[in-house]
């Protein structure tokens, strides 16, 4: 055989055919394509939050009522404006607790991570690529929801946009931390889906997706303060409506991140 053979090893002096993209970029590109290849995934992550908000805003008779008539601040925003932070929490929960942990656990179960550890690229890069793709998905989902809210629904602009953004970012950290913990320990796709879905529906409950928090009994509202997506909704609502700075709920979100992210890092199994 000669150097013409496509597999001839480097000592035969063959030059590279095309400049290879950096591995992490290549992984991100592939993972993004795979994400978009599954209609169920991108519909629920990207489109559903905006669609839910639009449907409620256009067809619910309460949409333009005051969000909480008994509260001096929350009474100044419409119900559909009050529902917008809830939908943002929903977007965070969907990305971080359903798709991401199930995908990572599946990669471990199928040996995708192990196969990577036989290449020069560490399997942690695939984890990184997954997080990047899911964060991008979250930004698209959040952007789409806010876009629809302002263009179609007349939702009022946040009184303190920086507070809302801070709460959103901290919520993403906390939820990805929780999702990573599931991804770290779930042995199979099935286990990750089961645990992830349970956390997901509990989160949706406390985030106020079924019933907005002001409508819930006082004890539930208290518990919601300590649940990541409950705290997220409350902090974003405070920023949106112009309540006092939501120190307590932001600290709760930061605490969740500080516990779950390192713990997931420690417990993560690559094979």
């Amino acid at each position: 055989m000669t150097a013409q053979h496509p597999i001839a090893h480097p000592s035969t002096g063959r030059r590279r055919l095309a400049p290879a993209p950096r591995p992490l970029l290549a992984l991100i590109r592939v993972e993004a394509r795979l994400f978009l290849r599954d209609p169920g995934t991108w519909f629920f992550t990207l489109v559903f939050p905006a669609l839910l908000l639009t449907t409620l805003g256009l067809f619910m008779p309460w949409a333009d009522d005051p969000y909480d008539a008994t509260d001096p601040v929350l009474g100044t925003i419409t119900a559909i404006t009050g529902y917008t932070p809830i939908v943002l929490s929903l977007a965070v929960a969907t990305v971080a607790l359903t798709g991401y942990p199930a995908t990572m656990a599946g990669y471990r179960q199928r040996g995708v991570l192990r196969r990577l550890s036989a290449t020069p690229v560490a399997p942690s890069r695939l984890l990184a690529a997954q997080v990047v793709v899911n964060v991008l998905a979250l930004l698209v989902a959040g952007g789409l929801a806010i876009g629809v809210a302002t263009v179609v629904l007349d939702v009022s602009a946040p009184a303190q946009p920086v507070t809302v953004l801070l709460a959103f970012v901290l919520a993403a950290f906390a939820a990805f931390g929780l999702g990573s913990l599931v991804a770290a320990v779930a042995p199979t796709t099935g286990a990750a889906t089961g645990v992830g879905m349970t956390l997901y529906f509990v989160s949706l409950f406390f985030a106020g997706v079924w019933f907005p928090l002001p409508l819930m009994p006082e004890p539930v509202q208290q518990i919601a303060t300590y649940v990541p997506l409950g705290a997220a909704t409350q902090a974003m609502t405070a920023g949106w409506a112009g309540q006092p700075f939501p120190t307590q709920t932001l600290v709760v979100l930061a605490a969740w991140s500080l516990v779950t992210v390192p713990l997931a890092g420690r417990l993560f199994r690559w094979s």
Partner: protein
Amino acid sequence: MDDSVIEVSHLRKTYGDTQAVRDLSLQVHRGEIFGLLGRNGAGKTTTVEIIGGLRRPDSGQVTVLGLDPIRDGARLREQVGLQLQDSQLQPRITVREALDLYASFYPEPADPTALMAELGLTAKAGTRFDRLSGGQRQRLSVALALVGRPQVAILDELTTGLDPHARREAWDLVRQVRASGVTILLVTHLMEEAERLCDRIAVIADGTVVATGTPAELAASARTGRILSFVPDGPVPDGLLDAIPGVQAISLLEGRLVLRGANQMVQDVLVALAGAGLHADDLRLEAPNLEDAFLELTRTEKEVAA
């Protein structure tokens, strides 16, 4: 510098109370196709995955291209291509995407298009991994092991799941890859594969090497001698054949007499039959092959007693 590419000495690996590999030593030379042959659970995968840096040995020395698989893992993985026995890819990734992706991991990769053509995957370039047949997955897995243009390729059950045509194509590919200077460590159960493809073989039983040599050397070492079988055209008198020197065992199998023994028994058996007025129809003489040697070397104690 000597031409050893892989050097393993006194390797040990235990899982709980299973001794997967015990005191295993072997050497693979540059440019050869080296086969690891052994029964299920003999420790082949454990051995090659330690060589590839995927598992940590409990004790023993492993050197690959002068590198320690654990300490120099990063450099090793650029030069060693692994095909793992059971690992899959992302379910929705296409053949083309997988090859392009893996090509991006290496400094001087092979051309994915050429590699697909080489492995008969061109028509499947756009097919998702979860829709490939078992054999197609296997071919992709081989392609991924080679896409980094490694100096050493470790193939764990290269042809499992391939049909006879695909198997021959895979063998041709391995020969071509070797001809381009790549050293190949091949795990297999198939005698034919080992016989046709490997320059040298190590037979592994119970986690250790029980024999090493060329396929011909190993076959010749089988103690089975010759196997002579025929259909006599009448009843053979008692004691006629037992007395012949060199005959070690006689058995009757569906009307055929099967004699095992040394090569020189053949002439004497035919003479004795002629003396008794008998003819030997459908006469066959078989030499032991690699499979006989393998069965003998890897028999468990229970099977020896039987």
